[in-house]
């Protein structure tokens, strides 16, 4: 009887409505809470890393939570430092960006923008979130181990990450386990998104009528579904190495029998790892393409070209992993091929990049907060993309590989572009998700503060890398060729703190705007896509009547419609022309 009550019509308990909910909008908010928590967690670790690089082996001040380090005399030890950058990378990539972009906006937007009632598999969706939650607990549990969390880098290359690699304790094993569980969650999500997009589009919603955000999320899910199993397999082998003494990735002195191959792990890791960077950035490309169109009041320039170019990048992204391994000593012929394939990516990338500029061209540009962030993405992604050329070049990469230049480059593409893109999305869809508008004055301060400080931080990270500073070193002043960089490292740190402060402002904006009484109107941005046709709160099941789609997603400023500069996807243009 009791079980019946739980499973039956009793849909309104707090537990079923807000915790174990199968509603994609609730799950999106759950992912948003998880992602935001880890974004600030990972960000705090970045601050500590920067502290150590600017003021090596000095006492951590109280406002950076110095009391954590009290047992070590208030300073960050080398072991602790390695844990910090390892967990910063792992958490930001897998626990902050992925849940924020794919978990939150994948869940929220896909059913609403393609006009369906929910995900194809609502229970799997719920299960995906709670598996992610479990993975989070496993990951965080490594902090209470006597020797602390993992410290082998977010790449966790064996043999260093194997027990014989010399890292004490269980942190590395827990890390592997947490990532495997996270992978399971990601795979469940990816399958769900793909099936939903393929099977549940509302009548009239052709592939080429989908908003580009959906294109980005859809392509990212395909990459997730194909490549997460690869890393999962690699991690399972690594876990066996770590726990039952197999030697898949051990060689030389560390192997007792027939040697395994440490490079095999790197291949497996980067076969997944390079598509992973596109998994993170694809949703942003799509979202920015849409938002530029909304706030320029003009159709997205070359919509089909953008969609096809993004798909081409997805296809190419699976063929370029070797550019992470130029200096490993793999076959020189492979190096050449990987360089060529990597450079090919610049053709489709420059095409959709030009389309972004084309959207602005002859538009009517409104500088709302989401638009500022989207324009910011054009800037940072332009820089991030172009600086990738150095790393794609076999010879230049001999010098720049494993330096701060690489760190600056991928922070431009991943941290800067993805952060600005996520913020654009949050400012834009906040009224749809919570029925309130985020404060635009605070939003603009947040934009300018973040934009200036993150450019200072990431550009100068590249500059110190250019000067030779290699990454993951505890104290750069150990080396005579890096001594003159201490001033610059200090300044990067100061701007990194500023960047952190502006994010606190963002958190304040969210809390403050949620507390405001004033409700947002139904379609505050006069957007054409389907999610704005349902007022807040959107009920479980989304649409009362299945919407029918007549138009593409970017029908702005049509000359044949009087008195209105947009035409919703579900609106028949004849209704307006006749009026």
């Amino acid at each position, binding site marked *: 009887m009791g079980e019946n009550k739980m499973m039956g019509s009793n849909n309104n308990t707090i537990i079923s409505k807000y915790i174990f909910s199968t509603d994609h909008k609730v799950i999106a908010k759950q992912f948003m809470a998880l992602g935001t928590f880890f974004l600030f967690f990972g960000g705090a670790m970045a601050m500590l890393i920067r502290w150590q690089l600017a003021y090596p082996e000095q006492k951590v001040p109280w406002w950076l939570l110095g009391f954590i380090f009290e047992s070590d005399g208030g300073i960050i030890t080398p072991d602790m430092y390695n844990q910090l950058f390892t967990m910063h990378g792992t958490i930001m990539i897998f626990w902050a960006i992925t849940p924020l972009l794919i978990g939150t906006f994948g869940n929220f937007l896909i059913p609403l923008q393609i006009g369906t009632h929910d995900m194809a598999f609502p229970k799997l969706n719920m299960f995906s979130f709670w598996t992610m939650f479990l993975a989070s607990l496993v990951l965080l549990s490594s902090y209470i181990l006597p020797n602390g969390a993992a410290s082998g880098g977010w790449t966790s290359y064996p043999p260093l990450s194997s027990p014989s690699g010399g890292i004490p304790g269980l942190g590395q094993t827990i890390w592997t386990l947490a990532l495997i569980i996270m992978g399971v969650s990601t795979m469940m999500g990816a399958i769900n998104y793909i099936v939903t997009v393929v099977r549940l589009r509302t009548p009239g919603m052709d592939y080429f009528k989908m908003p580009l955000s959906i294109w980005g999320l859809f392509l990212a899910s395909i990459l997730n579904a194909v490549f997460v199993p690869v890393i999962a397999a690699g991690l399972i082998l690594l876990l066996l190495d770590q726990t039952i003494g197999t030697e898949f990735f051990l060689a030389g002195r560390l192997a007792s029998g027939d040697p395994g*191959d440490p490079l095999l792990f790197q291949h497996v890791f980067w076969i997944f790892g390079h598509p992973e960077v596109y998994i993170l950035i694809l949703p942003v490309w799509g979202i920015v393409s849409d938002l530029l169109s909304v706030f320029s009041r003009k159709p997205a320039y070359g919509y089909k070209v953008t969609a096809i170019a993004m798909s081409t990048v997805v296809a190419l992204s699976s063929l370029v992993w070797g550019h992470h391994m130029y200096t490993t000593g793999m076959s020189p012929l492979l190096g050449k091929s990987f360089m060529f394939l990597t450079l090919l990516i610049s053709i489709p990338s420059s095409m959709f990049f030009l389309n972004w500029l084309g959207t602005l061209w002859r538009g009517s540009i409104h500088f709302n907060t989401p638009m500022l962030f989207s324009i910011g993405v054009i800037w940072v992604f332009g820089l991030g993309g172009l600086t990738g050329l150095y790393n794609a070049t076999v010879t230049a990469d001999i010098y720049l590989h494993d330096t701060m230049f690489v760190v600056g480059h991928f922070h431009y593409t991943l941290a800067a572009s993805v952060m600005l893109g996520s913020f654009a999305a949050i400012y834009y869809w906040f009224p749809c998700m919570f029925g309130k508008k985020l404060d635009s004055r605070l939003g603009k301060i947040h934009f300018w503060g973040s934009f200036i400080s993150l450019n200072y931080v990431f550009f100068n990270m590249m500059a110190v890398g250019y000067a030779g500073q290699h990454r993951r070193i505890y104290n750069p002043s150990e080396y005579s060729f890096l001594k003159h960089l201490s001033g610059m490292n200090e300044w990067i740190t100061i701007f990194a703190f500023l960047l952190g402060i502006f994010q606190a402002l963002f958190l304040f904006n969210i809390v403050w705007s949620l507390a405001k009484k004033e409700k947002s109107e139904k379609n505050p941005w006069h957007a054409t896509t389907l999610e704005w046709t349902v007022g807040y709160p959107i009920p479980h099941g989304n649409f009362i009547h299945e919407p029918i789609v007549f138009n593409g997603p970017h029908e702005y400023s049509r000359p044949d419609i009087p008195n209105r500069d947009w035409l919703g996807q579900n609106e028949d243009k004849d209704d307006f022309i006749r009026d």
Partner: protein
Amino acid sequence: MNTIFNRIKLRHLLYQGIWFQDLPKDVSVDGYRIDNVISYTDLVISIYFGIVVALLVYFIFQYRSSRGHKAEYDHGDKRKNVMVTAGLGFLVFFSVDAVIETMAFKDLREAFWNFPKGENVVRVEVMPQQFAWNFCYPGPDNEFGTEDDIIPTQNQMHVPVNTPIVIQLASWDVIHSFYLPNFRVKQDAVPGMITPLWFQAKETGVYDIACAELCGNSHYKMKGYLTVESEEDYQKWLNENSPQETDSDGWDDWEDDDSDDSGIPENWSWAWEKIK
């Protein structure tokens, strides 16, 4: 909060905070090739990024709604538009990517993968371990793995100036990376693999050797010194480090000691692999 302001030294802003850094001084014969590729990339991406920013700024001011500009209903999907976008994409590819690729492949063919042969080549075996660099020179018989091999103090590498140096790199435990910033050299040392590399110094002096691949908690301290010196000084240094026939405290001891992992590796050194 006061602490942070005390720590900020204003002079840093004046001359260290805001401008570009230079690459470290190049003292190798072929390092200029890498510097050239980097400079070319610097130049072209600055131009392209400059154009993008100029367009962006122009569009933002010209087409802002507050200026009353009405948007044009244009999907940009006509044949002509697509051709222009694709054309510009290929222009970028051929003016940047193809040039860089040609330069890089030429440098690889002519220098980095063109290993020097002949009598005057100095051969060194390098084996990093957590957290030190071990070096081995073949000694008078020019053969590795023999009694007269010269194994100097850890972290000390000496090479003669203006002579090609061919190195074979292996690792004793985890992955390390042999990084000579002043020579534009970086090569991973992977357990189970023997990896060749070569360079030639053109100026004497003492330069840093760093480990570029995370190898554990003292990764940052895994530092060596490369002394580039004249041929005479180099020979003198080799003689000073030669194993003494009568001295039993040489490296032989380590070979017998198979229980201790902390010292110089016991299977030091391996037979020199032929470079194809």
